[in-house]
């Protein structure tokens, strides 16, 4: 299962992270997290289900482009980091 780490700012919402999540893509893994913790969804995704403009995701240390981040394939050993961008502050 992928390991999902959250930015320290969101750790108030996810104090028990990192979390293990099943999924073939970044979006699937995040959905698995949100199904257990629905209140986190609105912090990471907007009301159209897109990754928020000023949130960024790293897969095994590489930052993904926001427009296709959720569809990126991941493996069982993947480490995901959900971070806030430096923009938007």
């Amino acid at each position, binding site marked *: 299962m992928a390991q999902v780490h959250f930015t320290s*700012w969101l750790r108030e919402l996810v104090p028990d992270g990192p979390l293990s999540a099943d999924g073939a893509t970044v979006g699937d893994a995040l959905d698995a997290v949100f199904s257990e913790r629905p209140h986190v969804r609105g912090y990471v995704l907007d009301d159209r289900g897109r990754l928020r403009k000023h949130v960024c995701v790293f897969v095994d240390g590489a930052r993904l482009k926001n427009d296709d981040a959720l569809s990126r394939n991941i493996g069982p050993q993947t480490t995901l980091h959900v971070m806030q961008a430096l923009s938007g502050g």
Partner: protein
Amino acid sequence: MTDRMLVSTRKGLLTLRKNGGWHVTATDFPGVAATAALRDPRDGALYVLLKHGHFGTKLHRSDDDGKSFKELAAPAFPTDAPGEPSLFQIWTLEPGGADQPGRLWAGAIPAGLFVSDDRGESWRLVRSLWDVPERAKWFGGGYDDAGIHSISVDPRDSRRVFAGISCGGVWETLDGGESWKLHGKGMIAAYLPPDQAGTLESQDPHRVARCAAAPDTMWMQHHCGIFRSGDAGRTWASMKLPHDDFGFAVAAHPKDPSTAWFVPGMKDELRMPRGGALAVTRTRDGGKTWESLRDGLPQRDAYDLVYRHGLDVDATGTQLAMGSTTGALWTSDNGGERWTLVNAHLPPVYAVRFA
């Protein structure tokens, strides 16, 4: 006089209390922009809308007078709403009528109107207003998208609700939001081609305030001047001022329909006090004559702009408060005749509200 105010700022929700002078007694959600706040007069609940730079719009409620806040589900556009809107911010939050416990109205950017009947626990988009065909002609004013900044429930009939949209004109429902009618005859938009200046759905009412004791009287700071309505916002008369009539904020006297306050700036690309001298404009005779109140306000080198929700008057009609983009906050306890600086070092102020 009210001894508490909620100040929504770029760096959180500030609560100020009056004890001798006014002082900040609480800073909630430090670092996060607070775009609107409300103390519900029906049950004392405090609400605050936040706009996280990274994480979107959030709503919190306090049921213990501000000691603690609980996060609620914020209003959100449904995925099937035409136009693929995504919430940018909540601009204003108002309680429903005294006979509608738990009802709240929220105005958003983009210009969605949201309603809750359970004290903010759940929200729905008022589709009847989102779906009006005139929405195709709405456009952003200041922000990229049009937004609802003024919501006023008629104290005589809670089903009658007024909404002001920048830029989308003024709208009224008589049936609690089931259907809406576009009003606003008399407004003039100089930013449109001359033959379209009266187009109702393209007007930019910056802010609208209603006299609580005479609910048919409304005052408007429009992008192109100051207007007054004597029929609850359906038709408007242009006021002739001897000086700047551009601005954003307006406060209506709660008892006297002839009295209102505005905070002028130089139009319209400049948006700062003329000559660096800040003033509050007041009429006490229904707009026939206008005073420029300056005592206690900076008269040189001031760049303060007061946003739409940055000016408030309490229920007595004599105590006012005003906060600026420069982070200055003033109060007056004599109807604006004299102002006292509370703090010159606040974050940019978005909204000031006696609570």
